[in-house]
């Protein structure tokens, strides 16, 4: 079931340098969203199209997203005042699929790839799975200050905290369970090379979020393009043709 609800901004907190968590009251979405699913937010005034965000946390009636200002849509969201409404469409997409425990999941996130992880940790725990979380960023100040797992591991590109290197470099061999990953597509391609059975949440440009515009094409190893908004955004890592998926997305609407 998909809902389109007027959602007031109810909370905002900083979780890293230039990284914020916004909370919107959107009860039907908050109550039904699964880890890895997303909401598509419309701002008026604002850019023409909605902007998709993985759900970061869902608590009671509130849905949270995490973002940095990367373009017109995110800048507008960060300018919202408390009580101001957006239209929230969701929950959308197919999230992480987890089997009941006992067992272990390893969450690997890079930068804003933390987005689906708190919900993934929640759902994994509810299934009796042990959760290890490996998070990487460029530098200490950009590491998300919130984490929810049984054990944590950090990595920074500049070595300012944790392992000097990428999140992948910080995964202790003893911790590798079922891998769930989110981050830049380049990082996910490396995840796919090491753990083809990992589940990864990919990022694409998106038009409608509902499966009709075919704008969010993801190239699959089966030869077809399918839709990040409908068959994804979570995929088996080894099922994507990474070389054909744009490695880095630019967001600014040129005006």
């Amino acid at each position, binding site marked *: 079931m*998909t*809902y*389109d609800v007027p959602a007031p901004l109810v909370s905002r907190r900083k979780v890293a340098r230039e990284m914020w968590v916004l909370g919107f009251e959107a009860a039907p979405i908050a109550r039904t969203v699964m880890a890895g699913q997303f909401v598509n937010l*419309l701002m008026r005034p604002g*850019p*023409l*199209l*909605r902007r998709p965000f993985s759900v970061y946390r869902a608590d009671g009636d509130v849905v949270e997203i995490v973002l940095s200002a990367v373009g017109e849509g995110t800048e507008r969201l960060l300018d919202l005042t408390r009580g101001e409404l957006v*239209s929230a*469409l969701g929950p959308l997409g197919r999230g992480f699929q987890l089997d009941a425990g006992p067992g272990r999941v390893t969450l690997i996130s890079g930068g804003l790839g933390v987005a689906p992880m708190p919900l993934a940790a929640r759902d994994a725990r509810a299934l009796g799975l042990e959760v290890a979380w490996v998070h990487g960023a460029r530098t200490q100040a950009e590491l998300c200050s919130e984490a929810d797992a049984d054990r944590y591991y950090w990595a920074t590109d500049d070595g300012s905290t944790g392992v000097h290197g990428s999140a992948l470099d910080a995964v202790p061999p003893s911790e590798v369970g079922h891998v769930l990953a989110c981050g830049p597509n380049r990082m996910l391609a490396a995840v796919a090379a090491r753990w083809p059975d990992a589940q990864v949440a990919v990022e*694409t*440009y*998106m*038009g*409608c979020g*509902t*499966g*009709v*515009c*075919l*704008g*969010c*094409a*993801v*190239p699959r190893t089966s*030869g*077809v*393009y399918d839709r990040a908004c*409908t068959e994804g955004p979570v995929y088996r890592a080894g099922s994507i043709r990474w070389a*054909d*998926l*744009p490695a880095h*997305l*630019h967001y600014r*609407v*040129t*005006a």
Partner: protein
Amino acid sequence: MSGSLDVGGVRLKSPVMAASGTFGYGTEVPLCDRRHLGGIVSKGIFLQPRLGTPPPRIAETPSGMLNAIGLQGPGVEALIRDYAPQWASWDFPVLVNVNGETVGEYAELAARLDGVPGVSGLEINISCPNVREGGMFFGNDPRSAAAVTSAVRQRTSLPVWVKLTPAVTDITEIARACEEAGADALSAVNTFVGMSFDLQSRQPRLAFHTGGLSGPAIRPLAVYLAHRTARAVSIPVVGIGGIAAAEDAMEFLLAGCRAVQVGTATFVDPNAIGKIVEGLRRYEELLRPPD
């Protein structure tokens, strides 16, 4: 707006339809008030399945979006098998948007769809900017446009609409050619070819390099072309281009269109069409012919 209206042999439930490529095959869009749908035009179909273009396929631009999807689709047999049976049970008409790389392919597709329950008409796409063969190239020459139209006309008893490209010097010339070749109505207009560059990569933002521009950015251009088309022919014209509200639809109706199609607005609001049809009630007065 209540009651149905006849547009080129298709009985629409309201004057507001879903444009091709923006409503899938009618089964996907959630939360749309389907009681208000005048009808829908399917995603463009070819005889054979098509993969479509590589990503990135879309880029937002001021008040608009560029797309180069490349007519990804399952091919006509899958459409007939998987979707048409559902359409047959719906109370609004479904037109199939028909594409080909040659005149022969358009004609064969038309023949294949003739008599298929659930298909209420054909919209011939001679205006897609995102395919390498066929598409827009048939739409910018009056002889080619007429050749496709009459080839389709001869192979089907279904109503035949032709969707025109704005990328022509004189749209009235193409419109008349299609009318003379047997078109029952014209859809005006398809997207405008556009391009946008990313400053960081110094590359076009779309993998296909060019794309079709849609959304409110094109509305005045589209109203103008729909108006010129409507004045040039006696068959009905269905206006398309950046309609997001009842007032926008009214502009096309006042410009001489019999009905309209809504596209990009559905991406923004899945119930855009429902809201537009409800909004049009406020303007019924304006649509009455003067005494």
